[in-house]
């Protein structure tokens, strides 16, 4: 979707302001929210791509105004409501509705390290050989799907060169909509800054993006 999250190339967001000796958390609730997100039970079939898509669907004014872990709050609440695990009244009150079911399958503290070490593997076998070879020129397709995609607007329609082949990876555009992992070959594609931003950009510099095969066509 052409959302507020797709920020590459925008002006007007101001200076970066790195914080010296930045603490891990700026308030205790940030730590709790990170822990809740990692530890809570999500609806069946929920996945990281759906998490990112729900974040993109935040109203743009809230996306810009609220901090990172507050985004996670919004995503977790939206996921819980969407999956029917909680009701709006429960979110508002902070308490379970009288007589509502209580589950007993939440991840336990002693399972957390195992989860940290074993989760998050997104490589998958793809039977078809890769369509593109390292060094080949490709064009990122000009597509504007209303759903989730990982092809940023700034690269659409631009010509680049295949830099790396990462093998088969889960395809976010289908996975975010719980339409299957539909793995595809994934490539790092290098685009000249002048191709992306025009003649005023540096003639030496490049931006490399990881792009799935169906985002690309031969150029």
């Amino acid at each position, binding site marked *: 979707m052409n959302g507020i999250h797709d920020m590459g190339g925008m002006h007007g967001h101001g200076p970066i302001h790195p914080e010296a000796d930045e603490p891990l958390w700026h308030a205790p609730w940030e730590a709790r929210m990170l*822990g809740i997100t990692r530890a809570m039970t999500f609806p069946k079939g929920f996945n990281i791509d759906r998490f990112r898509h729900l974040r993109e669907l935040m*109203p743009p004014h809230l996306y810009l105004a609220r901090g990172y872990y507050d985004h996670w709050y919004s995503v977790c609440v939206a996921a819980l409501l*969407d999956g029917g695990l909680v009701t709006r009244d429960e979110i508002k009150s902070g308490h379970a509705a009288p007589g509502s079911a209580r589950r007993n399958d939440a991840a336990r503290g002693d399972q957390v390290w195992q989860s940290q070490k074993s989760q998050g593997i*997104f490589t998958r076998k793809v039977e078809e050989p890769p369509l593109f070879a390292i060094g080949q020129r490709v064009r990122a397709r000009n597509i504007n*799907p209303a759903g989730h995609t990982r092809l940023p607007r700034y690269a659409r329609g631009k010509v680049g060169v295949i830099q790396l082949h990462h093998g088969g990876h889960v395809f976010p555009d289908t996975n975010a909509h719980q339409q299957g992992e539909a793995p595809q070959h994934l490539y790092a594609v290098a685009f000249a800054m002048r191709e992306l931003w025009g003649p005023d950009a540096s003639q030496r*510099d490049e931006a490399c993006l990881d792009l799935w095969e169906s985002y690309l066509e031969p150029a």
Partner: protein
Amino acid sequence: MNPHEHGHEHHHEGDLAHHHDIHSELPSDPALRVKALESLLTEKGLVDPAAIDAWIEIYESRIGPRNGAKVIAKAWTDPAYKRRLLSDATKAIGELDFLGRQGQHIVAVENTPETHNLVVCTLCSCYPLSVLGLPPVWYKSAPYRSRAVLDPRGVLKEFGTELPEHVKIRVWDSTAEVRYLVLPERPAGTEKLSEEQLAALVTRDSMIGVAKVKAP
């Protein structure tokens, strides 16, 4: 089938977005909302508070930029390890047991006198958590995400890093589940330092690519 056809249908995007409407009925203070969410989920058996504590503990004491610094110092002192890191970083970092969530597929990119690498995630906040820990606020912020791909030299200047015109900058936009780790240049005058002493010099910012490693 064109895999993007689904984008023209309606996959309850409206319904999903609708769940965000609840914000107009909730307190603006996130501390209150998060506390209420934790109580609710605990009551319903959807979260175990001990698991929340355990995750916080992991990021406070077990996973952080010291992991990445050990990888870099080893690459600086062990040429065979450096070759393995640059050809298959996932495997090489696995040797040190630093793989994990948001860092199971890693590519290491080497800074040299000719090329400087810089990492960003313009679409969200992807970051090599398993080797660098939690990202700093600026990495997740709109100013960095918007300008790192458009004006990397200007961005680097805001971190006090000025590169000569002949150095090529390559910005890595982390649009997939591959995480990029910058192998910074080893500073001159550090020939006599041990691997451990070298690791102490390596900063988080140098492994993102916004700064160089400074000699002691």
